[in-house]
């Protein structure tokens, strides 16, 4: 979402000589899968934004007289085991999944950028402190850690969920950024900036980050796809966002029952497809971006 905006702004600029970003943009637009990904994501985002217009039912409202109904004019995808409208849940589920994917990504990225740049810029003790902390986090089996935290908490809300995910997934992006910064550290322009007395903050913000934008965007995109899968997976096993909040993972949970699996495909195929499409699309975009930012690849 955020990415798309950047591109629009850039591409609408009048044609001058080609900046690296413009070159990247061109390479990106030639990648058909990546463009298809963008289209799918735009559709998903508009579904999420216009959910109240698309869904004719309250996705949390149970209806015990109409439980496990087959699709009908009233309930386009039938109802779930508590009589909630599956179509409305599918539509509103996109809000939750995308929100969690996007904000968990932003949060993780924020932690990663701050810690990664500190680590890469200062090196030495700061670096080893942050890297050991990252190692410590990586040692814990991710799923086990998250499950334990979820089990302790009384109440898991979307905000808490995002925070937990961010606090457990930051080491990867931190390491990647640290590596990037370490390689930038010895570049002439950094040494130059340093020699004319730029403050640390200025060097990081003005010289480090813009030059690391490629890896940051690529990793952030792919991370978002992973986070959406994590949310669905955790909801599927009952440790994610609790019912009755509609999420795609919560919807797919119903298919654990053999009866739903075999006789009610309308209840679980659409949310399953939605997860698949969204994650595939985001990964295509991520791939496209990676190729686009790779200066070694041809036009």
């Amino acid at each position, binding site marked *: 979402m955020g990415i798309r905006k950047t591109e629009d702004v850039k591409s609408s600029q009048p044609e001058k000589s080609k900046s690296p970003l413009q070159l990247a943009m061109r390479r990106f637009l030639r990648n058909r*899968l990546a463009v298809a990904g963008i289209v799918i994501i735009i559709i998903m985002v508009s579904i999420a934004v216009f959910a109240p217009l698309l869904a004719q039912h309250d996705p949390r409202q149970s209806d015990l007289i109409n439980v496990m109904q087959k699709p009908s004019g009233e309930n386009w995808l039938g109802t779930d085991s508590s009589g909630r409208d599956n179509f409305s849940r599918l539509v509103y589920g996109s809000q939750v999944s995308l929100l969690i994917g996007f904000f968990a990504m932003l949060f993780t990225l924020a932690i990663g950028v701050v810690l990664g740049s500190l680590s890469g810029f200062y090196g030495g003790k700061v670096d080893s402190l942050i890297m050991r902390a990252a190692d410590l986090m990586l040692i814990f089996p991710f799923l086990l850690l998250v499950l334990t935290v979820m089990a302790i908490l009384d109440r898991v809300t979307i905000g808490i969920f995002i925070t937990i995910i961010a606090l457990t997934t930051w080491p990867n992006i931190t390491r990647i950024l640290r590596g990037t910064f370490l390689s930038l550290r010895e570049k002439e322009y950094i040494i130059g900036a340093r020699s004319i007395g730029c403050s640390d903050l200025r060097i990081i913000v003005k010289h480090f980050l813009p030059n690391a934008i490629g890896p940051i965007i690529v990793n952030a995109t792919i991370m978002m796809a992973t986070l959406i899968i994590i949310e669905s997976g955790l909801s599927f096993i009952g440790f994610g966002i609790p019912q009755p909040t509609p999420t795609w993972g919560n919807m797919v949970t119903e298919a654990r029952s*053999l009866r739903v699996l075999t006789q009610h495909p309308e209840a679980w195929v659409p949310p399953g497809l939605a997860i698949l499409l969204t994650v595939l699309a985001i990964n295509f975009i991520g791939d496209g971006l990676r190729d686009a930012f790779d200066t070694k690849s041809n036009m």
Partner: protein
Amino acid sequence: MKKSFWLMIVLLLSLMVALAACGGNNEEGTENGGNDVNNEVNNNNDDANNNNNDNDAEDSDGEPQSGGSITAAMYSAPDHQFNPLFYSSAYDANILDIAFESLVKQDENLEFIPGLAHDWEFNDEFTELTYQLEEDVTWHDGEPMTAHDVVFTYTAIADPDYVAAGGVRTNYASTLAGYEEYVSGDADTLEGVEALDDYTVKFTFAEPNIKALADTSFFIVAEHILGDIPVAEMAEHSSAYNAEEVIGTGPFNLTEYQEGEQYILQAYEDYWQGTPYLDSVVWQVVDQAIMTGMLQNDEIHLLNRPGGVPAADREDVEAMDNVEILELQDLGYQYMAFKHNHGPNDSLTDKDSWVPNEKVQDVALRQAIAHAINREGFVDGLMYGAGQVMHATFPEASWAYNEDAPIKYDYNEDRANEILDEAGYEWDGDFRTNPDGEEFTLNLDYPTGNEIRERTAPIIQENLQAVGIQVNLNSPREASAHFDRIEENDTDMDLYLAGWSLASGDPDPSGYFLSTAAYNYPRYDDETFDQLMLEAITAPDAFDQEYREEKYNEWSEYMSEQLPVIPLYSQNVIYAHNANLQGITFKTHQILDDSHLWYLEQ
């Protein structure tokens, strides 16, 4: 590009598989519990009896064969408390029921029949009960079982440290003569139980006891295993969880287990009623959603309470050629409790430390809540009609059930709103305030595992919010964590969901509703309520069943007016077993008796 595309598909799929696998395990660990209460419920459910007879006829067709192993399934993990004196969940009971035995057990009609004791007699006043024990019973380690083990068992339940150590079975000892003196530490021995010789044991009751057989029907434990452990430490001792030290007299012996996954019980070859036909019984903890699929694939042979086959899957299971099912009305039921008292410590008995939970003290509020919850909808929608709405805590199968006794709260939002308006709960924005004009929110806790119960929680929240009562629905906990939690006083819990599965025949609810009962999780304390329950079991009047019925009617009415808990529903149990598994005796209260006669047709 192409390569990474396929790589990603593969990764995606493997991630899904990994998550799906986790799904199985994790959900297995969770779910429901009725806690097992060994009160007895007399039953005159003709349907149930007919079903039993049909089944017996079927079972007698083939010749029993030795050998083979069966897998039985439950949807929540036990608490791993395998000392019968201290267990409290229905999941532990699944294992204990085939590893331990009691002096007497109940038949299909809930009449008492011989167990470890082959004969018994009362004195004329019904204050003394003398049992003659079977003489060839041995423990799983080969030691003979004697009257001293019986004395040890009941003395341990009466121990001054028993309740503090976590024991909830005091109702089995509290009617014995000398209980008060012994439990307070004033006496060194318990007067009420005495071994006359190695195979004769005499129980003496403080007053004529109308349910003496029920009171003496608890599991017998081995003195030579537990005798040296102080009762205060018994629940935590290795004998409670180390499979090798779980020694009973039953047909199967717990030999090993993987926590939360499976529990393996091997046949005890020297079992006194003959070597069991089966080599072993394996209990697996399986997500309720996948049980039906496993039944179809012959992966599980037996689905027992709590739960059984989900009502929604009934038709599918019925259609399977390799599976036979049997639907019986449950003696247990589900309820939503109000947490009436909190407190700084977890004391059950020290009522002085209790602090009333002001939010739920108002009877009008509780009555409004009863009107607001769509219990009829639970039965029709979530259970596909295979259950009953409960208005009092006696299920239809019990002789204490009287349709007309309790006040019935139908699902009626308007009535709920009226009551709340009258009681001064004013609307303020989306929700109501309490009569003092302050905002108030009720916290509702519920466990995972029992799918129907899991589904009711968000609906209860929705129902209550529809009449303006704000409900904070906490994330569901794994069942054993939930039941630990509701025992605590020091929480901010206002409402919780739970169930009782009543294992035996007498309808006396004092074991879990009396304010001093360890099972009094709601921490409800009401004199009239207690008194009615006690009157119903006080001799000599209580020898007259009509008198008791009257008392229970009074109690039901009082309870339905005060609503210390809201009885929700009683769900029919749909037992299912593989067609090759034969010889099961289906009784209304349980099906695990006589497991040595189970056999696999090969």
